[in-house]
């Protein structure tokens, strides 16, 4: 299709896009003991480049203590037909500081520059929100899930920005009975948004007190929204199967009603869909068993902190941050996933203490898949305080980025032996890398109208 705006006409067009040559990942010093700002790292992922598998640029944030975490674009394929839009700005929220950093990645993609900062204090005073997490663009507007009010108490709400990054106020008309916020994804053809639940910023920011799960300080519900009315209309109580329901993904196919959520502590994948009678249904489709750790008296949960769906909707990828494995499931039949690939990198079970000669502190945590489904880039840090609890050695070793080669036809995963980025060797000392994005869009940023 001859067009005009950012992204691709359809998921099948996205799959045919040129291979990524650069990727961006955030790297943090917050909570590490190094008194430097967090930064956006540009990683060279072009095998033909002399600087392949290296950090080639670092954009520091203006101050310390942001805890950069997830990111999002100002525009995606939902603006494909809008010639006035372009995928130019990456939005980098600071979970702890509440600052939003708007970064221009288009003027020089190898060396992104800071375009604008929306101060955390301004967001608090205008909207009574804090704890920014997921960023999605909605046509030409942007909404960000904010996990708390200005005092860090749940449930927070949604911050609405216009395309000039001016604060428009709260996006939602009501939070209904929602107790917590976290991630969200929407499927406009079905007028639905689904949101998940972590906890109040004041609960999760200081670290993970497992006992607080029993005191209902962490979430266990999924919420279905009337997207146009901007209010929740139905909630599913997932119970013990859905403790800490975090990442939410719909199929990329805009006609599909199937979606998935990873329940981190239960280490389950929850699947939902709309049945023939027009009712939303859910079921648990993957249940990762706890593992026995050689020195632990109690079994160790996987802790599935992220999930991702390939652009062709054929594979679901998940991590077990504490076990140390990444898995690939064929979800061609979303009710009956089939495990087709698994690799270990780090983790507490000692199955892969080093990868390509680099000691891995942490386990597989965030990941981004190439549009063609062949390259999965995986990082190891979850959140500074949680890292410090489970993997204290990450303070000296820093995070790593690993590339896993995936077979999108027959299934299968294998660590790429030519690629590793050791954030333990950064010029200012060991930092921790987290979410990654590609300049041309990726498997977690685009939604089709």
């Amino acid at each position, binding site marked *: 299709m001859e067009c005009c705006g950012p992204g691709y006409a359809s998921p099948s067009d996205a799959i045919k896009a040129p291979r990524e040559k650069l990727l961006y990942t955030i790297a943090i010093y917050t*909570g590490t003991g190094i008194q430097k700002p967090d930064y956006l790292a540009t990683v060279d992922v072009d095998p033909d480049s002399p600087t392949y598998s290296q950090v080639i640029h670092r954009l520091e944030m203006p101050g310390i203590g942001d805890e950069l975490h997830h990111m999002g674009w100002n525009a995606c394929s939902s603006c494909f037909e809008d010639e006035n839009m372009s995928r130019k700005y990456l939005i980098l929220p600071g979970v702890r500081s509440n600052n939003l950093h708007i970064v221009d990645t288009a003027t020089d993609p190898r060396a992104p520059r800071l375009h604008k900062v929306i101060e955390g204090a301004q967001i608090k005073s205008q909207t009574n929100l804090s704890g920014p997490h997921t960023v999605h663009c909605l046509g030409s507007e942007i909404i960000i899930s904010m996990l708390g009010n200005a005092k860090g108490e749940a449930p927070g709400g949604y911050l609405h920005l216009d395309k000039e990054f001016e604060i428009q106020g709260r996006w939602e008309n009501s939070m209904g009975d929602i107790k917590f916020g976290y991630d969200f994804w929407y499927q406009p053809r079905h007028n639905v948004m689904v949101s998940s639940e972590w906890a109040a910023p004041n609960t999760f920011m200081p*670290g993970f007190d497992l006992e607080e799960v029993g005191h209902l300080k962490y979430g266990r519900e999924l919420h279905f929204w009337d997207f146009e009315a901007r209010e929740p209309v139905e909630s599913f109580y997932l119970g013990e199967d859905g403790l800490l329901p975090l990442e939410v993904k719909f199929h990329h196919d805009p006609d599909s009603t199937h979606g998935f959520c990873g329940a981190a502590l239960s280490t389950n994948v929850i699947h939902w869909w709309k049945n023939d009678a027009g009712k939303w249904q859910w079921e648990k489709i993957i249940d990762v068993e706890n593992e026995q750790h050689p020195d632990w008296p109690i079994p160790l949960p996987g802790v599935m902190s992220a999930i991702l769906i390939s652009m062709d909707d054929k594979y679901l990828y998940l991590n077990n941050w504490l076990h140390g494995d990444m898995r690939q499931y064929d979800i061609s039949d979303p009710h009956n996933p089939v495990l087709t690939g698994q690799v270990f990198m780090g983790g507490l079970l000692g199955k892969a203490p080093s990868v390509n000669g680099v000691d891995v502190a942490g386990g597989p945590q965030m990941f981004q898949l190439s549009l063609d489904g062949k390259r999965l880039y995986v990082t190891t840090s979850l959140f500074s305080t949680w890292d*410090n609890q489970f993997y204290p050695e990450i303070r000296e070793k820093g995070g790593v980025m690993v590339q896993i080669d995936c077979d999108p036809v027959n299934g299968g995963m294998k660590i790429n032996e030519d690629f590793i980025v050791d954030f333990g060797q950064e010029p200012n000392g060991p930092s921790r890398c987290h979410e990654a994005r590609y300049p041309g869009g990726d498997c977690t940023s685009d939604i089709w109208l």
Partner: protein
Amino acid sequence: MTTHTVTIANRESATYQVNARRPLLEQLRDQGVDLPYGCEYGGCITCAAKLVEGEVDQRRQVALNNRQIDNGYVILCVARATSDITLEIGVDSHDKLYRNPFLDPLKPHELKADIAMPQPSSSKAIGQEKEG
């Protein structure tokens, strides 16, 4: 104006004068002490330091559980000195701040203040709690 002396034990015992009415973080930073911080309202633990001697008022903090408080941690972005104090600062002071929650559970009285049970006051009470 009441002032107190802050001694930073792990910075060669450097001393600073602080106003008793303002939070320690901003006053120490104003005097050039390089301190970690994040939320700046007492909710995220990034600015925690260990109080070795003296007293602070940190009623506004919501980041620490009772075990962390018992181990001497204070939240500098909201804590005010109520006497002369000695602190250890930065992550060098965080040896007891983080624990693996699967291996080292909190007792009911060690949870955060809003959900903690009262601390058992005698050895008999502790014995009962174990049996229970």
